[in-house]
């Protein structure tokens, strides 16, 4: 199993990053920090999906003069392009909300906000 994981070091890396991100989301009190954590989680999933498309010795899937097989799988890349855009959209909205919450409450610490409710 260890050998298997060593070979799949990309997968292991994304799981570790996923957990770090989740830890940040759960334990951090500051809303912005929470959201950076969420972004780490997001990128870890992206890294995982990109890793699915990798093939040993593969090149970028751009045909044309000089390109030679094998090429990496283009599908995960296409998915993650979309994924990245979705992530930045979510981030923009979340940060806007954080700005408004700060304007209203004067703090962006989750526990202080909870007390205000």
């Amino acid at each position, binding site marked *: 199993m260890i050998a298997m994981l060593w070979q799949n*070091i*990309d997968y292991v*890396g994304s799981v*570790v*990053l996923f957990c*770090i*991100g989740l*830890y*940040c989301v759960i334990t*951090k*009190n*500051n809303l*912005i*920090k929470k959201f*950076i*954590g969420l*972004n*780490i989680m997001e*990128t870890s999933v*992206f*890294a995982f999906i*990109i*890793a699915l*498309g*990798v*093939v040993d010795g*593969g*090149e*970028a*899937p*751009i045909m044309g003069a000089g390109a030679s097989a094998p*090429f*990496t799988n283009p599908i*995960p*890349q296409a998915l*993650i*392009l979309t994924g*990245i*855009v979705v*992530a*930045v959209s979510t*981030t*923009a909205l979340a*940060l806007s909300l*954080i*700005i408004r919450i*700060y304007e209203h409450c004067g*703090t*962006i*610490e989750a526990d202080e906000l909870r007390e205000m409710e």
Partner: protein
Amino acid sequence: MSELFDLVLIALLIACALAVIRTKDLLGAAIIFSTYSLVLCLMWQHRGAPDVAMTEAAVGAGVTTVLFLVAIGRTVRREK
């Protein structure tokens, strides 16, 4: 050689992620996060995914970081 490079990149990513968590200064955390994105971008370039790498550089390291900076500028700089 290539595997070593992979390993270094992943270690860097994890280090950056941990640093983001440890940094109390939000501005610093955002900058480190942008570095994290750039490392990721390098990794993807190396994995034969230049389109994604470019997007990550522009969006992840660029726009996202700018948005974080703006938000930090309009709220607080330090985490309690």
